[in-house]
């Protein structure tokens, strides 16, 4: 399913749709931000935002909510990219939220800052008076997202009410809001993981090396392979082992699982994704906690 050898009209369609949504966001809102994680989806979205306004630079800031448990590769990559494209990056850290007493760190071997970042995110949106946050979420990631709109309304508490979503017809997006409310906007809604990879290949986008297979010490926990780091404490009977792995998503090191892989180039990744039997979030332990895990987190303001 490599795209280099054939025409890829679906990518043109998805690209144009994404650009259209990003331009609508810039037009309908006063203070949008683009949520940047350094992951492949946010890189794709950043690329679309550059295309949307070229020859102008991206007219709104990028916001990174840093759990402090990032892979060091991601941060280096992030800073290089910002310098190259001349974007305005704002960073807010979970550590600050902890220091300010806004949140309490989870304890125990399963401790994760994934839930804490909701508070940091909402605080940052509040502080920056953001009225639209562009996110890289895709509808194919998880079933609660299948019903998400491109323009997703959030109330004053950042909550999503799946029963009160505005109908979204054609490409007429309605971003009207009351003071204090904001929108999450998802330009990649209609993309699949495979589309993102094919697009990255076609556009020649640089990605963090974590996405390609490399040797790394990992521990197997609840069916996921977690990378060795200072933030993980081994339980009884667990041990690190070196494996050839790559990551399908990159987030907090404590809950982002790797998969065993030999795909060291993007075409090999595309091949692997096209024939995969596990979905991309399958490596994320936070989704497996309960049946409606994602829906619960979304209601509270998770992306």
């Amino acid at each position, binding site marked *: 399913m490599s795209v280099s050898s054939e025409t890829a009209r679906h990518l043109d369609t998805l690209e144009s749709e994404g650009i259209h949504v990003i331009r609508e966001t810039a*037009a309908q809102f006063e203070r949008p931000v683009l949520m940047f994680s350094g992951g492949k989806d946010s890189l794709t979205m950043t690329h679309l935002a550059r295309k949307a306004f070229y020859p102008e630079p991206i007219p709104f800031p990028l916001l990174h909510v840093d759990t402090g448990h990032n892979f060091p590769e991601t941060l280096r990559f992030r800073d290089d990219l910002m310098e190259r494209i001349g974007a305005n990056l704002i960073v807010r850290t979970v550590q600050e939220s902890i220091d300010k007493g806004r949140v309490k760190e989870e304890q125990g071997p399963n401790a994760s800052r994934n839930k804490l970042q909701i508070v940091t995110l909402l605080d940052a949106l509040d502080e920056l008076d953001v009225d639209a946050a562009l996110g890289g979420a895709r509808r194919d990631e998880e079933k609660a997202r299948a019903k998400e709109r491109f323009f997703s309304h959030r109330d004053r508490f950042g909550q999503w009410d799946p029963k009160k979503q505005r109908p979204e017809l054609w490409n007429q997006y309605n971003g009207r809001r009351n003071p204090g409310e904001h929108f999450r906007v998802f330009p990649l809604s209609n993309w699949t993981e495979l*589309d993102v990879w094919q697009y990255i290949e076609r556009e020649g986008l640089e990605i963090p090396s974590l996405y390609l297979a490399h040797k790394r010490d990992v521990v197997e926990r609840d069916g996921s392979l977690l990378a060795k780091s200072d933030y993980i404490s081994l339980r009884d009977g667990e041990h690190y082992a070196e494996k050839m792995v790559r990551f399908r998503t990159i987030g907090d090191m404590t809950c982002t699982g790797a998969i065993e892989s030999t795909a060291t180039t993007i075409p090999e990744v595309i091949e692997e994704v096209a024939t995969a039997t*596990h979905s991309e979030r399958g490596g994320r332990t936070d989704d497996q906690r309960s049946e409606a895990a994602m829906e619960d987190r979304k209601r509270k303001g998770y992306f």
Partner: protein
Amino acid sequence: MDLLRFTTAGSVDDGKSTLIGRLFYDTQAIFEEKMSEIQRNTQRDDEDLELALLTDGLRAEREQGITIDVAYRYFATPKRKFIIADTPGHEQYTRNMVTGASTAELAIVLLDARKGVLEQSHRHAFIASLLQIPHMIVAVNKMDLVDYDEDRFREIVDEFRDFADKLDVNDITFIPISALKGDNVVTESEKTPWYQGATLLHRLETVKTQTDRNQVDFRFPVQNVIRPHQDFRGFAGQVASGSVRPGEEVVVLPSNLTTEVESIVTLDGEQDQASPGESVVISLTDEIDVSRGSMIVRSRNRPEVTRQVDADLCWMDEEKLRTDRPYIVQHGTRETQAYVSNLVYRINVKTLHREEADTLTLNEIGRVELETADPLFIDSYRVNRHTGRFILVDPDTNATVAGGMIRGVGQDVAAVGEESTTRKEQQTSPNVVWEGLAIPREEREAKNGHKAAVMWFTGLSGAGKSTVAKALEERLFDRGIQTMHLDGDNVRHGLSGDLGFSANDREENVRRVGEVSRLFFEQGTFTLCTFVSPYREDRTRVRELLPEGRFLEVHVDCALEVCKERDPKGLYEKAEKGEISNFTGVSAPYEEPEDPEIVVRTDEHDVETCVDQIVDALEARGLIPEAE
């Protein structure tokens, strides 16, 4: 690889979720962990896979066992990527169906072979037709429960066709399937040897896509102004339809100023063309007023610029429609306030009958007229899905309350070529409604390369109406314009052979000719009518049959003395001798046009000069292309 967006309408009972699950399962789009999740979620212990559980996402839906919102799902085969807008089928979810249908290029209507064509199947097909989805597949499901009986399948096909004939759907494919058992979904079934057609997936993989984009009429709604520095000003947008190249002349609405496309800019370099659906930045050669909500079009191919809109409206809000307060209309990138000034009728989505109504409530569909604060640049939805639609927003709650499909410019008389709704006509022939034409006039016009119009030549006998019209028709014909000439003498041989020359009969004669010219008009023809037609009221009645700007009254003016002198048919002589009664100018009055579009004086200019004058006027009005 290309992309097909399709919608599925049907309820859980019809096996819709099972069908999607089957498509996913058989194309290996289901991941292992989802399969294990399904097994975890399955409450009943069926032999067949509980495929339906794959697709019902939200917790409330799982609890209630229904689908309450549009869910978007994705799968791909080596040939194509698919986006499914999965919508619930019950009447109370009409708005979800409309939402799902709005972006679809194909609709799957699912029937239960045991139950056949139900009221809700009618509704699904009607919505697909209303939203102008180009292709439809009628999947007759649960064939396993009727023993794969061919006769049952044929019966359902015939019944559905009878109904669909009344709708605006051109491409329907019928497929007998069993989603549960997998027959004819992805793989051909051995149990239906009588069915020679393609499987459902094969049809999805091969149907022509991108057919919903109008390739002819260039429309570029401006989203943002791009101004990186003093020397560059560009306009960002997505090409709604048609295409444009640098160097081509364009007009910017609403300012109406003409300029040229200077360049088409993207991050990947300048392009030599902007095509339908592309997101680009266009720069223009002149510094003219362009902002969000402007539209860039070709000077000789413009949308209607109007504050009166005739549209079908689907109401989507809990609060009912009110005609005494304004809403916000979002039409492309343009936004203004609008009153719903007239609710023409409501469609009963069960029976598809038209009903009198004074409001629309949640999930109701009706035909309305809007009056907007600022002009909109519209095309009819049939001709252009991308500039023929809008949404209404409640300014108090910010909710999206309605979606609208434009029929055309609003006018108090019934719009031409569409269902007649005026009271007068309903009274005189209550059982006759206008049949919507299979090919709308706008498409014929686009193909012909000129607009359709009716030119009404009026003037005294002997003024030279037929002479000027014939010379004009030759000139137009040479330029490739499709023409027809309806002449007073000719129609009186047949069409009006039963009429005399009394005021009543003259009125009836003009009425008949007016109706005939309207038919020619809908056929895309430039129709020249040469009739003395001495009464202003009769001419006005014909004018009202046609859209604004498409009826041109041409006063062929000539002094009565000159006409008498010419007297080509010896009629004045006879009239003066009293051999003919009711002769205009002698024994009957002639009411001169008060405000004709064109006046030619045949007693001052020769025929060629008059024809030149008319051709210039037609070009200036953009009805025919200018001479090379």
